């Protein structure tokens, strides 16, 4: 039971306290882009969770390989990105092929944004953070769930006020992008208050 609660707390921490966007600002560019269209948020969120969990799962084996290899261990920071991108690329292409072959309707619906949900800093960043913070496979998976859900949550919070941030009543200088940054900053400040200790970057 304690294992279950520990894993849930890891995911909740990643959603609220150490949210990918609000605490670390990772992939704010994608968030601003995706939040324009509320229709895609659900699909985007599911894709983000899927990719962060699967790449986290495979990342566990890659990290163990790096730790066991004497040559790579000392300079892991140099080779890690290439290994992670290779994992991400393989997962991305296999997923696309499976969807195209067996779930063509779903493929057509998500093909506009699947590359945004898979090939972004949030997913790649989750792999780097997993390598720093996790030891067990279960932690990699639950952190993956937390990162994916946290990213989707951040997109939702931005999307629900999209029209207001771009409203004609807002002064031109602040309308749209500048106000979106201020809004995310205020949200980020609120979420920062949930963390009792400073977050490592």
């Amino acid at each position: 039971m304690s294992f279950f609660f520990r894993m849930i707390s890891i995911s909740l921490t990643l959603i609220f306290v150490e949210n990918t966007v609000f605490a670390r600002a990772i992939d704010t560019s994608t968030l601003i882009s995706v939040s324009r269209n509320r229709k895609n948020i659900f699909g985007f969120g599911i894709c983000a969770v899927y990719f962060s969990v699967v790449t986290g799962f495979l990342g566990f084996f890659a990290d163990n390989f790096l730790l066991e290899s004497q040559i790579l261990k000392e300079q892991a920071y140099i080779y890690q990105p290439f290994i992670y991108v290779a994992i991400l690329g393989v997962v991305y292409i296999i997923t696309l092929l499976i969807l195209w072959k067996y779930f063509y309707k779903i493929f057509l619906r998500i093909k506009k944004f699947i590359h945004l949900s898979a090939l972004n800093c949030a997913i790649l960043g989750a792999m780097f953070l997993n390598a720093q913070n996790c030891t067990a496979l279960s932690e990699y998976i639950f952190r993956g769930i937390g990162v994916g859900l946290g990213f989707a949550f951040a997109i939702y919070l931005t999307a629900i006020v999209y029209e207001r941030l771009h409203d004609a009543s807002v002064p031109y200088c602040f309308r749209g992008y500048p106000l979106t940054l201020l809004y995310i900053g205020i949200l980020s400040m609120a979420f920062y208050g949930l963390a009792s200790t400073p977050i490592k970057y």
Partner: protein
Amino acid sequence: MNSNNIPKSNNQKNDSLGSVIYNAMVRNNHILVLGTAIAPVIVIANTLKNAAYLALTFSVITFFTMLLSSFIPQRVVYTVRVIIYIAIGSLVYVPTAIIISALFPQAIQNMGIYFPLLITNSFIIFHSDTMFLTEKKGRMILDLIFGIIGYDIIVLLFGLVREIFSTGEINGNVIALPMLFKAFYQPFGGFILLGIFAAVLRGILLLIKKISN
């Protein structure tokens, strides 16, 4: 990424060098107008020194990745091509990381995960096809160079202002300020300050437009 303002390919245009520079560095500034690769700016560029590290690494990785990516045939579908761009980025990262760690060992430590994350920056993922790789090579390189310079200038300015207001120092040298805004050192302070920067630039552009009319 502020995709409302993404300028389309400039293939058909024969702009003067001055307008190319102005458009790439000011009118379509990648940080303050297009919202490109802003995560490292918000988190890392909290001092002038860190901003300089970010500007250097971003410039090297983005320039060489985009340059090498321009040789990928456009007939390859975008969903597949984009993973090739990132793979190229991860290859460019290897020599960059080796050189940077030899020259500035502190940079690797200060930038943390944001250094390797530069290989998936939105310059490479979003703007590769909409702005750069559909242009002719010469024009692409010009837009790329001035786009990167525009990015670097804002990063350095942002780091400088943030360091002054949050720590009361310039590159470690203390200056007398009546009060400090320590929150600007944190990511949420970075978001807010960047929003103010973006609004100021928009105001300046509006003023220029009014004057020229």
